[in-house]
């Protein structure tokens, strides 16, 4: 039926149009974006936690490392990270594999502008099907997002840890808890309430940063909106149309707004639960309301 769209009524034309292989690419990209968020958020939180712990460490080099990670990564523009860091990361992987897998290669790796490694060291192998390449690009994206957002999360968590009242730790110590025990039992459970406002900001920024995926060769929703919305001349498609980018971007706008709204509601609830019983103004207000 969809083979000859010119003869269709507008409803069926639209149905056929919205189910072309190209549109399936768009729908698929929504999944990609959600998956990216689902993996990146916990990964970034882990990086952040590690960074904050390192920055608080008594071991000086580790402390320097944690602080350097926070300040350097936060200072570099995201786009620079995504353009240069990722290519450098990819080349670093390939360089390592090249040294291990092709020890008797006699040509230099850098030849003028070219980066040449042996075929076995290519990542992914050039014989690999395209979906492997996309998964690899996706993994690189997750890693890069986690490093970048991890630095911001580290700084937020570091602040959260410092905000826990000193008296709490002192009491823990008075009970005879070791440094590690008081960290795990007292500090960590209490810091979330101070860190959550900062973390929820980060989550919102992360949601909106996902179009950077395209820089890594993974088609994302903004790429598809641009591609599908652009003017299509009858010679090259069965579904010619004018400049529909506005409609596609309007749809994206609604998607992003709805998504951030849902996040806001969920984070609000989480905040309420975390505040419960805490020695903060929010916790005090909850206590008074209950009395």
């Amino acid at each position, binding site marked *: 039926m969809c083979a000859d769209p010119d003869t269709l009524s507008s409803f069926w034309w639209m149905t056929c149009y919205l189910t072309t292989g*190209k549109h399936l690419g768009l729908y698929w990209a929504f999944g990609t974006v959600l998956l990216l968020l689902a993996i990146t958020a916990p990964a970034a939180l882990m990086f952040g936690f590690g960074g904050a712990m390192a920055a608080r460490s008594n071991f000086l080099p580790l402390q320097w490392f944690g602080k350097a990670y926070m300040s350097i990564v936060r200072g570099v523009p995201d786009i620079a990270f995504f353009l240069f860091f990722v*290519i450098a990361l990819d080349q670093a992987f*390939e360089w390592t594999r090249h040294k291990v897998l092709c020890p008797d290669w006699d040509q230099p790796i850098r030849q003028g*502008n070219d980066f040449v490694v042996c075929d076995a060291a290519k990542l992914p192998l050039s014989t690999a099907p395209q979906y492997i*390449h996309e998964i690899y690009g996706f993994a690189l994206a997750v890693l890069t997002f986690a490093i970048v957002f991890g630095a911001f999360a580290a700084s937020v968590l570091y602040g959260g840890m410092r905000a826990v009242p000193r008296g709490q730790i002192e009491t823990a110590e008075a009970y005879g808890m070791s440094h590690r025990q008081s960290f795990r039992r007292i500090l960590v459970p209490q810091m979330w309430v101070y860190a959550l406002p900062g973390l929820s900001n980060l989550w919102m920024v992360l949601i909106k940063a996902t179009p950077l995926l395209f820089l890594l060769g993974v088609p994302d929703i903004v790429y598809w909106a*641009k591609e599908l919305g652009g003017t299509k001349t009858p010679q*090259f498609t069965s579904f010619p149309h004018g400049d529909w980018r506005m409609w596609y971007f309007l749809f994206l706008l609604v998607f992003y707004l709805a998504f951030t709204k849902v996040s806001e509601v969920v984070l609000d609830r989480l905040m309420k639960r975390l505040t419960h019983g805490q020695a903060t103004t929010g916790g005090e207000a909850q206590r008074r309301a209950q009395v």
Partner: protein
Amino acid sequence: MKNLLLTTTALAFAGCMAMAQDVVRMGTEGAYPPYNFINDAGEVDGFERELGDELCKRAELSCEWVTNEWDSIIPNLVSGNYDVIIAGMSITDERDQVIDFTQNYYPPTASAFVAASDDVDVTTGTISAQVSTIQAGYIAGTGATLLEFANPDETIAAVRNGEADAVFADYDYLLPVVEASGGELVFVGERIPLGGGVGMGIRETDTALRDKFDAGITAMKADGTLNELLKKWFGDQAPQY
């Protein structure tokens, strides 16, 4: 036993090497009809798709098509994410310093201006062009104001919504757009020949691959198949070899 194992590994390794040689990743933009675009099914299509597939068949290579943003298409080639750029890229001295080109498979082209009305002065107005193209380079050297966009479609949209007075791009890209616009868009000014024709971009170290494709293009020019393809995609007035 150990020997046998070693031989098998060596064989498997050799097999892998041979296979690795055979797959060529073709990088294109997918936004520049008739040269290359994404068709309704979501696949790369167009003149260069057919040409590339034919060249790969003749050279007995299996080709995999990938799309990449125009702006980063050369950096991704030299860092090895794909092996060939086949994206309507004109051969210029500037690009030739970074990558190698095959001989051209489309003769040196004329670029043209398209505007919403006849009375636009293309030497002084605001002209849109795609970033890092020979057209953008040319406009930067004239008295006109250059307005750059990431993809070709946006350069045209800028003229439609009045952001730019005219767009400067390959004549072949503009022709179907003007025809489909129903008089809304018109060619203005003179056509300007730019560049040394369109060729495939290949890493400078990949001379063997370049020679293979070069030989294929020579053969296709000789037996007339390239001319047929040009006619099919660019119409009867398409340039011929």
